[in-house]
């Protein structure tokens, strides 16, 4: 039962075959139930499709089936003896980029699909940029629909070159390439017989073996407090526990710790985890810490180590991806902001630049940030936040920006 969990997401432009690929992966790995298969078989026949449309396994909404596109992320699950997988199949359509970011924000691996006929297009670049901003550790570029280009190695090589040239300017650590046909299953679970020029692994082999050096930060000790547990019962009269999910580093019983923002220090006397008391706690465990001294700590505070503290400040630089389709980012505008377990307000102090998706150059003239734009901004918050750079910690380095009128989440932000 002790299996590793790998979360992966699809990415790439509309119709490049993401959902078909997930369907094919599930089908060829025998992870589809018979009644599910019969259901999509019936629907495909009713729609007059030639074969069974495997994309219907994830495109489950009525409007998705009507339009033949993915609108929102579908989550699917499967496991092999080696690993357990959580798949987020995301939409390629530009209008739904926010849903792609939703699926990608928790992934360890992104499968970037490219239609071999069209090569690298703007939306491929946008998704690759988002994957790099989100610091997804591994990108696997799947050059799809090889059946439509006669399984041509030249086509494949050209697209690989193009992507590599573009990715050289991005902050991505590990990029691999694979030629596939999602429709026919070439190199998905089974090796293709049509592309003997390709000597790399199949998609399944990659997913089972890619080294996911843990995504968590085990160095910088952080516990954002979600809630304080006070039983108010005779039995646990003086119990006061600080509950949260470890966001970095590790805590041991006996450790000297500091609470932010108060700066008071104390010592960990007990760690209560899901299975009772434990000596040691690390990400992503949910625990309750008990301290030696009765100090004032509440939701939004953070428990850290004396000699390793996050940045404490109100002026924060962020890379953001903007989602709101109605309103652009308002310079000097005020928004609500969430960071770990803190809720604050913020003002947009400055838009430093907007990123040109195609050239990756920084546009300092046109700084209007509209839906799907990516840019760098500076904000000032009403209260200090306790942050780390997103590069070093995805939990303490991420924020969401919320429109106070609509309550919608309008941007994802990454601390620089």
């Amino acid at each position, binding site marked *: *039962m002790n*299996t*590793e*969990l790998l979360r992966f997401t699809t990415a790439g432009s509309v119709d490049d075959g993401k959902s078909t690929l997930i369907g094919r992966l599930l089908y060829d790995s025998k992870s589809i*139930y*018979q*009644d*599910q298969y019969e259901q999509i078989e019936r*629907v495909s026949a009713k729609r007059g499709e030639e074969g069974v449309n495997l994309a219907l396994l994830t495109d*489950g*909404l*009525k*409007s998705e089936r009507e339009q033949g596109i993915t*609108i*929102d992320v*579908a*989550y*699917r*699950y499967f496991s092999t003896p080696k690993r*357990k997988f*959580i798949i987020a199949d995301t939409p390629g359509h530009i209008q739904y980029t*926010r*849903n792609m*970011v*939703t699926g990608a*924000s*928790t992934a360890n691996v992104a499968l970037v699909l490219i239609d071999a006929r069209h090569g690298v297009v703007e939306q491929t670049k946008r998704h690759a940029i988002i994957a790099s901003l989100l610091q997804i550790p591994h990108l696997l570029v799947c050059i799809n629909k090889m059946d439509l280009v006669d399984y041509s190695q030249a086509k494949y090589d050209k697209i690989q070159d193009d992507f590599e040239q573009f990715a050289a300017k991005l902050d991505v650590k590990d990029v691999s390439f694979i030629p596939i046909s999602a429709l026919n299953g070439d190199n998905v679970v089974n090796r293709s017989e049509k592309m003997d020029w390709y000597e790399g692994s199949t998609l399944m082999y990659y997913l089972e073996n890619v080294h996911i050096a*843990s995504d*968590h930060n*085990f160095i910088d000790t952080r516990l954002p407090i*979600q*809630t304080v*547990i*006070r*039983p108010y*019962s005779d039995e*646990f009269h003086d119990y006061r526990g600080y*509950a*949260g*999910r470890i966001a970095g580093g*590790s805590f041991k019983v006996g450790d000297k710790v500091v609470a932010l923002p108060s700066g008071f220090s104390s010592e960990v006397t007990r760690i209560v985890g*899901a299975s009772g008391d434990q000596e040691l706690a*690390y*990400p*992503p*465990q*949910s625990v*309750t810490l008990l301290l030696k001294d009765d100090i004032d700590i509440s939701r939004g505070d953070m428990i850290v180590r004396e000699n390793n503290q996050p940045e404490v400040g109100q002026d924060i630089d962020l890379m953001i991806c903007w*989602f709101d389709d109605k309103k652009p980012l308002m310079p000097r505008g005020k928004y609500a902001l*969430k*960071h770990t*377990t803190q809720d604050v307000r913020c003002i947009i102090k400055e838009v430093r630049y907007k990123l040109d998706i195609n050239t990756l150059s920084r546009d300092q003239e046109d700084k209007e940030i509209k839906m799907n734009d990516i840019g760098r901004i500076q904000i000032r918050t009403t209260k200090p936040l306790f942050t780390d750079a997103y590069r070093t910690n*995805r*939990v303490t380095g*991420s*924020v*969401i920006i919320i429109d106070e009128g609509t*309550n919608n*989440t309008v941007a*994802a932000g990454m601390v620089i």
Partner: protein
Amino acid sequence: MNYQIDHIRELESESIFIMREVAAQFENPVLMFSGGKDSILMVYLAYKAFYPAKIPFSLLHVDTGHNFPETLKYRDELVAKFGAKLVIGSVQDAIDKGMVTEEKGFNASRNGLQTTALLEALEKGKYDAALGGARRDEEKARAKERFFSHRDEFGQWDPKNQRPELWNLFNGRKHMGEHFRVFPISNWTELDVWQYLALEDIPLPSLYFAHEREVFKRDGTLLADCEYIQKRPDEEVFTQMVRCRTIGDMTCTGVWESNATTVEDIIQEIATTRMTERGGRTDDKRSETSMEDRKKLGYF
């Protein structure tokens, strides 16, 4: 130092995190309790999340009046064990008040009527968040759910326009009259649930284990013979070893031929089965998008 945790413990931790967010972000959350294994799991996770304090949510059972007797017995014992508060939303009441009309005929079920009773119970209790044990692997519309799922003032879900949900930052802000459905065990599969129930040695209603029961067959599904379902003349009752894979009310829960009498047997059975657990739910079979249609209106 090995800092790895296995996937079951990772899922457990994620669910506890979400329950604590709900307690912190909402004023009056409630846990929807159906009596099935997923809601039982939810209660045990809630207990762990706030231990040694009491579970800070009431349990809301939307009672169709057509329950398996075992369900009610188990529910009452569980409520007593955790000292929780039980709130009942009654479909019979909604029928009596003329808010909904009972379906007639052979496939009549109160499943669809539950939505009205649920929304009324949420409104009456002024609950601003309802925790549910729905899982994304159950059904294709559920595969699209967020952890924090926003509902408008009519309790409706708009699947084409869900809020983005990034990392573990859950936006529970809402306007007056709106509420949230929250699904802490979204990422668990049926097998994960059973492995966890086994690991934690959690007692379960007897319905989940193979037992002899009077059943009949309809549209390829076995249904328990009971006073709430009208049988067609050609539908013959026979005795069979069966168990439930999901528990809804008696009118829509199919039973499965099975000899699995222990949790270990069940895990073995699920690991090898070729059918989804909701394959036996007649409520899902009504149309291609029956779950989505019901969810949009405010179903669980």
